[in-house]
């Protein structure tokens, strides 16, 4: 089974999250610049005279597609790296994925998201735990 993680994180946490994921062997990802609102409830910015309220804040959305058995480690890693403890740390969504096709080779499914040095290899081979 393949899963997709959509992690909404703070902009300033991308470097930490990327580095933590690299350490456990998750390299493939893409990142969207997004705006959103949630419990943080916006921020005050300086105007010409005093401040004004901005409700939609810039965040980053990190997308990762991976095998289900790697989901828990990956989510834990993102949480640890992205967390500050203040509201505004973001949310992680997980979806089932029907299929993945690597454009260059035509590989499908799990084979399409594997590469040398990935999380499975680090855990002891492609058919690891």
């Amino acid at each position: 089974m393949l899963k997709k993680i959509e992690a909404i994180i703070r902009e300033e946490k991308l470097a930490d999250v990327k580095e933590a994921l690299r350490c456990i062997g998750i390299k493939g990802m893409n990142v969207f610049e997004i705006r959103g609102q949630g419990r943080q409830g916006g921020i005050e910015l300086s105007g010409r005279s005093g401040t004004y309220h901005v409700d939609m804040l810039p965040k980053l959305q990190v997308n990762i597609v991976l095998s289900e058995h790697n989901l828990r480690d990956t989510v834990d890693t993102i949480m640890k790296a992205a967390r500050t403890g203040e509201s505004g740390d973001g949310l992680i969504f997980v979806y089932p994925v029907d299929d993945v096709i690597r454009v260059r080779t035509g590989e499908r499914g799990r084979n399409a998201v594997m590469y040398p040095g990935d999380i499975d290899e680090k855990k002891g081979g492609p058919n690891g735990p």
Partner: protein
Amino acid sequence: MPGSINAGDTAWVLMSCALVLMMTPALAFFYGGMVRKKNILSTLTLSYIFMALIGVQWILYGYSLSFGEDIAGLIGGLNFLGFKGVGAAPSPDYGSTIPHEAFASFQMMFAIITPALITGALVERTRFKSFLLFSILWATLVYDPLCHWVWGKGGWLGKLGLLDFAGGTVVHIAAGFSALAFALALGPRRGFKKMTIEPNNIPYTVLGAGLLWMGWFGFNAGSALAADGVAANALLTTNTSGAAAGLVWILLSWLDGRPSTLGMATGFVVGLAAVTPASGFVTPMAAMIIGAVAAPIGYYAIRFREKRGLDESLDVWACHGMSSVWGVLATGLFATLEVNSGGANGFFYGNPGQLFIQLIGVIATILFSFGITFAVAKALDWSIGLRVTEMEEEVGLDISAHGERAYS
């Protein structure tokens, strides 16, 4: 004394023409940074167009209405139509050591930037056609007469003894209160107060403010029409007031949250506008007080305008109008003959009557500019309409009015 051209004076005034011309693009970017990105080209055009519009109008008849032979102290005659008789020889009345053409060109730059200042009030929603018509009417009915009142030979405010070195009344109060009048006639932008309207590019605004400051040396020191001590003093007072106002403004914003970049840039412009009428008549220390007091006036005028729910979008009234009301009055307080023997003493130098004259200048300028602007704007609104359609406003004026986009 008249008749002989001084090379130094002429060089400085020609240089000042270039400096003041630069203020219009600087203003365009100062304003352009503060609107939404769907309206930046439109906002730039609102300012730049005056280089074209007044660049023609001034030659055809604007200069003549402003500086032509006096008619009843109210307006210039038609003797300079098409710059007839405005040549290389000095004018007997204006700038006796520089070519008449240099004086007339220098004044043209003021006539260009003044209506451009007003456009801060009408960004993001005004029909271009109506705006062009308004601009020509404003230049003809407000700027040219007012310029004659204050600076034209025989103009009634000048004859009264009003001290306005570089345009506190003619430029800043007139533009500020016209902006207020136009905004009242026009109405707010869609969504004003209901959603946050954020500036698209504060760096443009900050850069614009820096270039405005530089241009202001031509504006104020150039108004001496000579490369002399009065010019040097005007340059120094200009710098001092801008500095003091920027400093106070950033402190005010700090007290309300954080030291704001946009606030600092705004403070600079407010200090520069405030000292404009005083620059050639007061000492640097007086200029420091003028700038320091102008900052809270502008700062809280913006707050007042916001509380009233009035969409005078880029605060021309607060930043230029109100700060220069203070500046013109402060000229009546701090002016001294020690700085400029061609001026007068103010309140603090034993001449309280000067303050009264300054007050008359302020009131006359406010009533005249506000009244005519409101009437012209309302008349245009009833006849051809001042606003774009709701859809055009939503899409943004870059696309809907000009068929272009700033970024792709």
